[in-house]
């Protein structure tokens, strides 16, 4: 397990997160692998990301502090659940969202998928481009995860989450959790 993964998991425990659910992404694979190795995390492998949002709302009402894990594609799936469930009912959660397709197609039409030089697979480009703006539109406080200050960011966002009673998000770029160390 890489140090970043270990630090991040430690930060979740230090900030008393105690309910975990999500749908995996290759960018988050070391985190999900750690959950799967140790059943004491109680990680729920959800069938859809909006279902994971529902699980988090139920868990929060049951006294838990939930953290959710998903790809930005799944964040797209969850838009209505976040707006008219999590936000509307003021049920907080820490969302860890991987950022596939960061930067979008960089001006290259998405239709011309035969061209080389895309930042990511074609299906991630549109969503990758709009992910930060979509977080802003939903008024979800978010930070770009800095691997050198992950624990401090989790602690700070947890405070924001408590103060605002709404979901908060950490956006995870490629290479932070999936690179090296294992």
């Amino acid at each position: 397990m890489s140090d970043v993964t270990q630090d991040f998991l430690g930060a979740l425990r230090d900030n008393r997160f105690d309910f975990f659910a999500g749908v995996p992404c290759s960018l988050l694979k070391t985190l999900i692998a750690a959950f799967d190795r140790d059943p004491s995390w109680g990680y729920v492998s959800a069938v859809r990301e909006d279902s994971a949002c529902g699980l988090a709302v139920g868990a929060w009402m049951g006294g838990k502090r939930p953290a959710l894990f998903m790809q930005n594609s799944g964040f797209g799936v969850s838009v209505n659940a976040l707006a008219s469930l999590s936000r509307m009912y003021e049920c907080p959660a820490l969302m860890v969202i991987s950022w596939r397709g960061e930067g979008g197609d960089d001006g290259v039409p998405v239709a011309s998928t035969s061209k080389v030089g895309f930042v990511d697979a074609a299906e991630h480009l549109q969503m990758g481009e709009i992910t930060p703006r979509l977080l802003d539109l939903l008024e979800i406080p978010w930070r770009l995860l800095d691997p050198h200050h992950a624990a401090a960011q989790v602690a700070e966002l947890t405070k924001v989450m408590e103060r605002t009673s709404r979901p908060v998000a950490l956006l995870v770029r490629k290479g932070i959790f999936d690179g090296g160390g294992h």
Partner: protein
Amino acid sequence: MKRMDAARAVLKHAGEDALVVVCNGMIGREVWTIGDRPTHFYMIGSMGLASSIALGLALAQPSKRVVCVDGDGNVLMGLGVLASIAVAKPKNLFHVCLDNEAHGSTGDQRTISGSLHLDEVARSCGYAWTNRVDGDAGAEALEVAAKELFAGEGPRFLLAKVEKGNVPGIGRVELTPPQLSARMRAHATR
């Protein structure tokens, strides 16, 4: 069998302390009208997610009974969640589907629940117990099934076939969404 009567019968046997998650649409307004309790959580919007919320609540509070009052449109929309519930095996989760084969809140457009057996889907996913009460079975059969629903360990699934149609002038939930979630959290963690 009217939907509101079916909801009333199930709630009667659920017990006063049960944490009840009610799906969006007319079902929530009917349960509110039957009689609100601080242990009721009514969904407004987010169709399909009542069962996910109930599962999260059941996992967070394993010693408390959690009842999900769902509809056929909701169950179909969150069909994968039946598998999530069956695999998570929460002994304290009781799932009721009031099935009128229609989207009752938007004008009774048909759903596809008349063409498949949702209780059999739940059974094959792995619910510990499933049962089905047909619409012409009568109030007594539903009472028996509701009693049985709560007589063993979950997850358990009861499909109650009910008539289409809404109650004219039915009330609306008079609490705000943050009030509803806060009072559920207060009672669930008591």
